[in-house]
C-alpha cells in the first residue's frame, strides 16, 4: 500500500524522472504531466494528495495559472501544492504575481535537494 499519490507537473523529463525515482523508492505512487492542462486532467482523474508544480513551463507563469485553477475547483482545492521554481535571476520577476493569493503550501528551488523533497512530502502527507 503506497503512502500517497503524488503528481509531478513539469516539462523537464529529467526532473520528472529523478523525482519519480526518489518518491517511488520511498513508496509513493507517482504520476506525471508535462504541461498544465494535462496536469489538471490527471488531478481530476487520479485525485492525488500532493502536486509538485513547476512555475515556468510553456510560458513563465503557467504553474501559477494551474494553482489558480485548482483554487477555483472545489474538487481540487484540498490538494497540497509544492511549487518548484528555477527563478534565480530577475528577468521574470515582473511576470510573477505578488498580489494574488496562491494556493501553495511550499516553494522549492531547483535543483531541489532530494532529502528535503522527501522530508517535505512525508510531512505534508502525514497530516
Amino acid at each position: 500500500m503506497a503512502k500517497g499519490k503524488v503528481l509531478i507537473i513539469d516539462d523537464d523529463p529529467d526532473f520528472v524522472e529523478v523525482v519519480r525515482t526518489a518518491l517511488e523508492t520511498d513508496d509513493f505512487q507517482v504520476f506525471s504531466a508535462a504541461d498544465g492542462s494535462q496536469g489538471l486532467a490527471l488531478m481530476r482523474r487520479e485525485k492525488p494528495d500532493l502536486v509538485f508544480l513547476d512555475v515556468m513551463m510553456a510560458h513563465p507563469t503557467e504553474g501559477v495559472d494551474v494553482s489558480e485553477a485548482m483554487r477555483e475547483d472545489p474538487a481540487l482545492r484540498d490538494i497540497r501544492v509544492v511549487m518548484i521554481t528555477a527563478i534565480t535571476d530577475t528577468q521574470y520577476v515582473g511576470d510573477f504575481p505578488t498580489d494574488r493569493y496562491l494556493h501553495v503550501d511550499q516553494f522549492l528551488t531547483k535543483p531541489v535537494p532530494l532529502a528535503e523533497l522527501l522530508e517535505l512530502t512525508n510531512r505534508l502527507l502525514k497530516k
Partner: protein
Amino acid sequence: MEEQFPLQAELIERIDWLISLRWLAVVGTLLTIVGVHVCFPGLLLQGPLVAVTTAIAFYNLLFYFYARRLHASRSTVLKLRQSTVFAYVQIALDLIALTTLLHLAGGVENPFVLFFVFHMIIASILLSPTASFLVALLASSLFAAMALLEYKGLVPHHNLVGLVNPELYRHGTYVLASILVMSTTLFLVVYMTSSISARLRARTNQLLEVSRSHEAKSRELEELNTKLQKLDAARTKFMVTVTHELRAPVATIYSCLDLVLGGFASPEKERQILERAQQRTTELLDLVKDLLELTGARQAEVQAEEAEPIQLADVLRNVEELMRVEAENKDLFLSVDIAPNLPLVRAKPEHMKTVWTNLLSNAIKYTEPGGIVVVSLSHNPEYVVGVVRDTGMGIPAEDLSRIFEEFYRTANARAICPQGTGVGLAIVKRMVESYGGKIWVESELGRGSKFTFMLPKACNR
C-alpha cells in the same frame, strides 16, 4: 559679403539701433539749436535748421515703419537683402542731412564737422569694408563739395558771427587742408573700424563653426553610445540564455548524483540514473564545445581581415570524407558535385570546415534513412555558391525566419533529436557573414530543405 546667419540677424537688429540713434540725433540737434539761440541770439538760421531736423525726424518715422514691416517679413534671404539696401539708404540720407545742417551753420567753420566720424563707424559696423569705403568716399565728397562750393561762392555761406573767424571759409589753404584732413580721418576711421569688426566677425564665425563641429561630434558619440548599449544588451541577453542552457543539464546531473549518493534510488535503478547523468554530461560537453565555436564565430569578423584565399572545394572534400561514414550508417545517399575551376574565397579554413560540417551533419541528422543529401559547389560572376539539399523532414514555415538564431530549435527537430544545442546554424550564419557572405534557407515541411550560402570571390576584395 559672406556672413553667417547669426550675423545677418545682427544686421537686421542693428537697423533698429540705427533708428533709435537717429531719434537721439534729432533731439540733440534741436537742443543744440535752442542752446545756441539762447547763448548767441541771431547766430543761426533757425528756420532752415529746424526744417532740416524735422525732415530727419520725418524720414526716421518712415524708416521706423519700414523696419517694422521688414521684421514681419517671412523670407530671411529677402529680409537680408532689403536690410542691406535699407542700411545704405539710411546712411546716405544721414550724410546728406548732416552736410545740409553744416552748410546752414557755417560750413567748414562748424566744429560739428567731426560728426562725420560717427557715420563712418556706423557704416563700418553695419556694412562690408568695400561698402564702408564707398560711404567714406561719399562723405568726403559731400564735405569737399560743400567747402568748395562755398569757397567759390556758388552757394551762399552762412557765417557763425562771433563764434569762429567768419572769413575762414574763403581761406583756400584752410579749406583744402580741412578737406584733406577730413577725408583722411574718415577713411582711416573706416579702415580701423572695418578691420576690427571684420576680425570680430571672423572670430564669431570660427566660434560658430567650432560649436557646430562639436555638435556634430557629440551627435556621433551619442549614436556610437546607442550602438554600444544595444550590443551590450544583446550580449547580456546572450549570457542569460547561455546560463539557462548550461543550468538545465547541470541541475539534472546534480539531481541524479543526489539520488544515488543519498540512497534515494533502489540499487537496480542506480545504473539507469547514472547513465542518465552521463548522457547529460555528454550533452553539456557538446554545448560547451558549441559555445566555444560560437565565440570563435563571434570573433571571426575580427579575423576576417587577415584571412588567406582558400579553395572551398578542398575543405568540402575533407568534410565529405568524414560525413560519408555517417550518411552510409544511416543508409543515406550523399552526392557531392563540385564545379571545375572554382575561384578562391578569402576565409579561414577551420571556419569553412565548421560551415560545411554543420550544414552536412544537419542534413544527415534530419533526413530519414533512404533519403538523399545533395551538396553542390559552383560560382557566379561575383560569388562562390554552396548548396546543401536534403529530402528530410523540412522546416515549418513559421520557423524559417528563426532557425539561424542562437539556441533556437524547431519543435520537430527537438522531437527527432532532443539533445541538439540549437547553436550550429547560428555559428554557420555568423561565419559566412563575417567573410562578407550570405546564407538563406528554403524548405518545405516533409519534403526537404535547401541551404544556400554565397561567399565573395577572393579577387573581388
